[in-house]
């Protein structure tokens, strides 16, 4: 029975072809060559070269982030100055005088925040680390 090209390829792949014809011989040769890995390989310092490139990229990325950080701060200062000049805003601490008589509230508020912080550290963080 004559096999179709597709059947012949499948048979060669499964090692079950027995036609003995030219097509089979040619396919055997092709499949054998394709299975053979190429003799190419990387140079000895390939891994080191990759690691060097990774490090260089990290340095470049860090300096880029630093530049963007500086740009952000400068832009924020400029925006603040423009907004103050534009709106004629004047800083006034007068509101502090009106609440200066309630210093006990501030002390309690501060102490309460510290207490919550302490509880957080003692209870929650300890549980997480277990």
């Amino acid at each position, binding site marked *: 029975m004559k096999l179709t090209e597709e059947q012949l390829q499948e048979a060669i792949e499964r090692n079950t072809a027995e036609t003995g014809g030219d097509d089979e011989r040619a396919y055997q040769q092709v499949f054998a060559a394709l299975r053979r*890995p190429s003799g190419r390989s990387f140079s000895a310092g390939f891994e080191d070269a990759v690691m060097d490139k990774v490090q260089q*990229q990290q340095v470049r990325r860090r300096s880029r982030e630093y530049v963007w950080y500086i740009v952000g701060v400068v832009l924020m200062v400029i925006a603040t100055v423009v907004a103050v000049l534009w709106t004629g805003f004047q800083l006034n601490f007068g509101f502090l005088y009106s609440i200066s008589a309630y210093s006990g509230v501030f002390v309690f508020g501060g102490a309460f925040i510290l207490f919550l912080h302490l509880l957080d550290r003692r209870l929650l963080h300890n549980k997480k680390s277990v």
Partner: protein
Amino acid sequence: MIDDKVLVSRVLGGDTQAFRLLIRQHERLVLHMVGRLIKNEAECEELCQDVFVRVYQKLGDFNFGSKLSTWIGTIAYRYAINALRKQKHAWSDIPDEEQFSSSFIEESNPETLVAEEDSDAFVMKLMNLLPPQYKVVLTLYHIEGMTYPEIGEITGMPEGTVKSYLFRARNLLKEKVKKYLGKEELL
């Protein structure tokens, strides 16, 4: 062999030895993938280095939706075809099937290709004359032992196209080898 998830988490944790191990485990795949399309050795090695740098940068995005090797193969494939495009190589569609097949089988003289090399080298030289898509599919299937879905995932080709390219590529190589075999017997 270390589990992919463990390896990836160690690399993401800043373990450079783990990344070196990742390179060693996948360098063969990347070399086969890129080397099959980029012939210049220095350029190929440079490109393979860039592939691993990209892997390092993007490893945090890898969500184990596929095998790590498939994901790395996809990056290598994209780098290789981009490099081909930069070299102004045609990478669009496979040339007209019938026209390409007849010119591939008829035109170049196998004797000039084979010279004094063995038959495997002869077949590999013929393979280099095939369109890049055929070469990639042949390499991933036969040398890397990948499945049709894995090849499809790497190349972005539908599974049917992968099967069809593989069939056509092997058929073209067979026809050429058959022609050579005939001549060899006459000698």
